[in-house]
Every structure is written in structure tokens, then in C-alpha cells.
């Protein structure tokens, strides 16, 4: 086991898959330069630049997948999926249902997501709940380099559309690029074990829909995804100093959701706190409450999410995105109200 950065792990898994399966093609804006390492190995027939035409090239990826290719189509940021949403909402997600299960679209849409570097509310959204709302789309949000590679492999092998989201605070290449992080005058709250960590020698798929327990705890279960997992772990360390034992469950995929793992953990602690960088209303945090209720588990519940449009200015942005202090406060509130 060596160590790799989050971005290198994705690229390494991608390269392994591309070497194994000649049907895999990668395309998107600027891809020959952005993915130049893949470009010089696999050539211009498999690593393809596109015009700034998301509607066309995401739509083309869906149909190319239906006709036998395994496309991995890239957007610079998930915010830009708005321009291509028809291809996902009305086509990719519907192929299997409309064909009565006779046809499928094994396409992966890869995009950078998330905030924490002051780029404003049109370039820092998470949107995983918004996308997972659509039946037929799987949504993957890794939080470590090992999962980043393993989930990429699983996404490629999946026979239906997968949205693969890499958080910009974990992918330092994106942070350098979009946050101007090479400036010595700026700093970002990058979770170190998320940005760089151990990876296997040869990639194996990490199955979709399987959560991972990052920390066991008896008083409270914090459920999160992406960078939120690392914020939750930091909060759990602080809570431990106050005598509260908080477990942290990393969902890893928003859809399919590992309802079993969530219900199992919450039924043990009786308390669930959701930490979700996506919007609070009508999203993942509410969904998690619903599955716990449906399972007949009586639990205290709280959530720390992004409630409104993400402000540009760093101070307000830090308040708007789930931060450690907000998580600790919310956890203490739930735990304090026991019995």
C-alpha cells in the first residue's frame, strides 16, 4: 500500500480501467490538457476534448453508452450540470425503465463539487441530493483517496448512469486551479487524510450503496458524506473531550443509500445528526430522517446543512457551509435533550 493524493487515486483507477476495457472513453471540456497523463497514454481516440456544449456532449455520452461505449464524461463543476440536465433527468435516468429493462446507459458523469474556497454560489454547490432525487441515477461522493479510486472503478463497472462527485477541498489539483491555492497568501481548511492517504496496489471496486463506519460511538450517530465526514470526525474528537461518544458513518454513495447501515447505527445510539453540505430543504438530510422513521426507529434528530445560496465572502461562506462548531453545537443539543 502506497499513498496517493485524491486526484491521483482517481486517475490511477481510471487508467487501470481504461487499460482493461477499450470501450472506456473520457471526454469533456479541456480534457486533453486536464487529463494529459491519460491523453498521452491512451491517445486522442479515447481522451477527447469537447466544445463548451454540455447539453450536447453529456447527451452524446448517454447515447454512446447505450450503443456500447463506456463513456466517462467530465464537467468542470457540478453546478454546470444545469446546462445538461435534460440528458440526465429525461434520458440517462429513464432508459432502463422505458425499455422495460431491455436497454441501459452505463455512463459516468464526473464533476468537481463543493465549496470552502470563496468562489461564490454558482460554483460551489454540492447538488448530490438534487441529482439523487431522480430515480435511475446513482450518485457517488468519496471522502478518501482509497474510496475515490475504488468508487470510480465501481462507477465504471455499474451498468446504469452514475454521477461521480469529487470535492474540491479533497482534490487539491482542483483547489489549485479554481481557488488559486498556489498563492502563499491564502489557506483552506483541507482535511489532510481526505486529500492524501493510503491506496491499494491494484484497484478493486468499492461497491455502490455500502456505507463505511469511520468511528464508532455510543451516544450519537453522525451521518455524512464527502468533506462533511472529515468535519464530523473533527467534531467527534471535540465531543469526546466533553464526554460525548459520537460515531461517524460515511455514506460514500448518496444513491443508492445504505439504509441498513444507517438504521442499524441509529437504532443503537437513538440519535442521528446529519451533516450535509448540500441544501437543507427537500434533500439528503430529510431523506435520512424519513428512512429512520419508516424503519420504526424512535430517534432524536438534527441536521447541519447549507440552508441558502452560498455567499461569496469567506466569513459568511464558512458560516453557511457545515463547520465543526455548528456540528458540535447541534450534537450537544440532541444529546442534552436525552430522556
Amino acid at each position, binding site marked *: 500500500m502506497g499513498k496517493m493524493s485524491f486526484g491521483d487515486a482517481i486517475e490511477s483507477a481510471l487508467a487501470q480501467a481504461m487499460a482493461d476495457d477499450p470501450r472506456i472513453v473520457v471526454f469533456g471540456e479541456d480534457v486533453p490538457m486536464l487529463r494529459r497523463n491519460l491523453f498521452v*497514454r491512451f491517445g486522442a481516440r479515447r481522451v477527447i476534448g469537447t466544445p*463548451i456544449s454540455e447539453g450536447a456532449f453529456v447527451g452524446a455520452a448517454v447515447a454512446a453508452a447505450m450503443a456500447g461505449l463506456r463513456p466517462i464524461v467530465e464537467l468542470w463543476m457540478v453546478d454546470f450540470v444545469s446546462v445538461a440536465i435534460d440528458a440526465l433527468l429525461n434520458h440517462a435516468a429513464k432508459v432502463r425503465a422505458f425499455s422495460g429493462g431491455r436497454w441501459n446507459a452505463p455512463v459516468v458523469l464526473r464533476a468537481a463539487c463543493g465549496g470552502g474556497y470563496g468562489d461564490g454560489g454558482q460554483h460551489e454547490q454540492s447538488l448530490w441530493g438534487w441529482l439523487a432525487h431522480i430515480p435511475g441515477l446513482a450518485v457517488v461522493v468519496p471522502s478518501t483517496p482509497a474510496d475515490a479510486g475504488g468508487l470510480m472503478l465501481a462507477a465504471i463497472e455499474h451498468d446504469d448512469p452514475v454521477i461521480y462527485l469529487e470535492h474540491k477541498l479533497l482534490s487539491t489539483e482542483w483547489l489549485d486551479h479554481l481557488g*488559486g491555492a498556489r498563492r502563499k497568501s491564502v489557506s483552506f481548511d483541507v482535511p489532510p487524510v481526505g486529500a492524501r492517504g493510503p491506496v491499494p496496489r491494484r484497484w478493486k471496486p468499492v461497491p455502490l450503496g455500502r456505507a463505511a463506519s469511520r468511528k464508532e460511538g455510543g451516544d450519537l450517530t453522525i451521518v455524512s458524506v464527502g468533506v462533511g465526514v472529515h468535519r464530523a470526525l473533527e467534531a467527534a474528537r471535540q465531543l469526546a473531550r466533553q464526554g460525548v461518544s459520537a460515531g461517524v458513518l460515511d455514506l460514500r454513495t448518496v444513491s443508492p443509500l445504505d439504509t441498513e447501515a444507517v438504521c442499524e447505527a441509529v437504532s443503537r445510539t437513538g440519535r442521528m445528526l446529519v451533516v450535509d453540505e448540500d441544501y437543507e430543504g427537500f434533500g439528503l438530510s430529510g431523506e435520512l430522517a424519513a428512512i429512520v422513521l419508516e424503519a420504526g426507529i424512535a430517534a432524536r434528530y438534527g441536521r447541519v446543512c447549507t440552508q441558502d445560496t452560498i455567499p461569496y465572502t469567506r466569513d459568511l461562506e464558512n458560516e453557511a457551509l457545515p463547520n465543526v462548531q455548528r456540528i458540535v453545537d447541534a450534537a450537544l443539543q440532541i444529546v442534552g435533550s436525552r430522556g
Partner: protein
Amino acid sequence: MSPDLWFLYRQMLRSRLFELAVTRLWNEGKISGEMHLGTGEEAVVAGVVAHLEEGDAMALDHRGTPPLVMRGVDLVLLLREFLGRPDGLCGGMGGHMHLLSPKHLAASSGIVGAAGPAAAGFALAAQRLRPGTLAVAFFGEGAMNQGMLLEALNLAVAWELPALFVCKDNTWSITTGSQSVSGGTPGGRARGFGMPVIEVDGIDVEAMWKAAREAVQRARRGDGPTFLHACCVHLEGHFLDDALVAAARHPAREMLPIAWPMARSFLRMRGAPLKERIASLRAVLATLVGAARDLSAAQERDPLKRARHRLASEPERLQSLEAEVVYEIQQTVEAALLPA
């Protein structure tokens, strides 16, 4: 009527020095996120904005600073917005890519091509509510591959909207050469929708002013939209600290971290045949060399240099104009940095 080059040069210089001040503040870490400058496209913007009047609207892209500076937005408010201050133009909520000024009917967006539909909507409101006024869209040639912009061109023709579609063509779609991913030409496409097209040298502010005047007059008369295709340059790449620009400018320092992983990947077993690999490697190198060449050529085609050259016959007047603008921007920066 002929253009007032002194006025146009002043506007271009105000924008340039404002953006240079922004660059310094960004490098100092006082401005966050991406920073897309409009340096190199000032002549295109100055030539158009000089014709705008009360009630005219502007739909802007991610390089919205020059149009707002030239339209008369309070520079202190603007800079405070970049600094993310609650007393900024948008309360620190928008930042440089999402600038909105209702007073100037000006709205920017970081979504490529979004200026097209926005200009169509502004123009529709102009047609119904403020006859004689118009809307301008500013966008790059990269945006001409975005469906919503092409649809907006058609809409503007179908509805005979009082609109100007200004295509600032710097030949680069982020780090991809636009020609390599585009069919036809921007002007040819607009013509295909039946829209009058003016091809103009976007480095020459006087030519821009004349072209824009014709288009503005057509719109105000109620004779429908015009497409201005203006070739210009980029002095700073896609955004500040663009990796491509950095590699092109400082190959000794920047190339190794790029070249090493690329060389390793190039040599890996299992992949494309060697011929294809070599072609890809060549393409990457050609992009880097092309960027370096374009950057140095761009300095030669700096629109401010062009205008300044024409004003050099009156050195004293030129000097005092420049001193005034330098002073204005210095004062702006000082005022913007004062505590709220």
C-alpha cells in the same frame, strides 16, 4: 459623428488599472476564488459601452469587470464586492463572477453562454417598457458552442429584439483552441439565423466604436438585433494563475511537475499504439507552445498600446490623462480598503 479617442482611451485605462489593482489584491490573498480578467478586451467593451444610455441593459459573462467600470458603476463599491465586504456592490454575496447592478440593468453570470438568453429578455423588456432602449450581451467565441446562446440569437431575430450580441473572440475556450472544437465561424452562424453581422478588429477601439454605433442605431430604430464579431486578445489566460499560462511563462519552474507524471504515463504498458501516444504528446506540447506564442503576441496586440500610440502626438495631454486615471484608481483602492 466620430469617436472621441481621448474618452475611449480613458475608459480602457480605467478598466485596465482597476483590474491590475484587482490582480495585486488577489495575489495578496485579499480576493478569493477564481479571477477572470478582461484585460485585452477593453477596446471591444469601450467601443460598445460608450453608446449606452439610461435604460439600456447589459448581460455580462464571467469577465464582467470592464463593462461595469466603463458603464459608471461606483468603483469603490465594485472593489469592495471583490474584497467580499458587506458594503460591496452586492453585499459581498456575489463576487466578481456574479455581479448585479439593478441601477445599471447589468447582470453577470459565470455560466458560459448565459448572457445570450439574458440579453434577449432584457431586450424584450426594453421593447415593451422602454422603446428606444436596448440590451447588449457580451460573451466569448467559446460560448458560441453553447446551445442557449444560439437559441437566443434565433429568438432575437424572430422577435426583432433591440439587442447587440458582442462576441469577444480571443480564440481560446479555456485552454482549448476554439477552432479545434468548432465548425464554421461565429459570424457565419449568426448570419445563418438571418442576423446582420459586423466583423470588426476588436483591438481598434475606434473601429469598435463605429461598428457598435451602427448596431446601436439599428436597435434603437426598432430594426432588430446585430451580431458584432470582434477579434481580441487575452493577456492573462483563462484566469489568474492559469496553469497553462504559468507553464508557458516559467517553463523551467512549472514544467517538471507537469512533465514527470506525463512521461511516466506515456511509458506505461497497455494503452494506445506508440504512434497515437506521440501524436497526443505533440498536441500537449503544441498547446503549451501555442499558449506561450499567443501570450507574447497578445502583448503586441494590446488594445491600449494601439490607442495610446495614436494619442502620442499630444504627449502632455496624454500624460495628464494618465496621471488622472492612476490617481482615480489609487484613490479607489485606498477608499475600498478603509474599514467599514
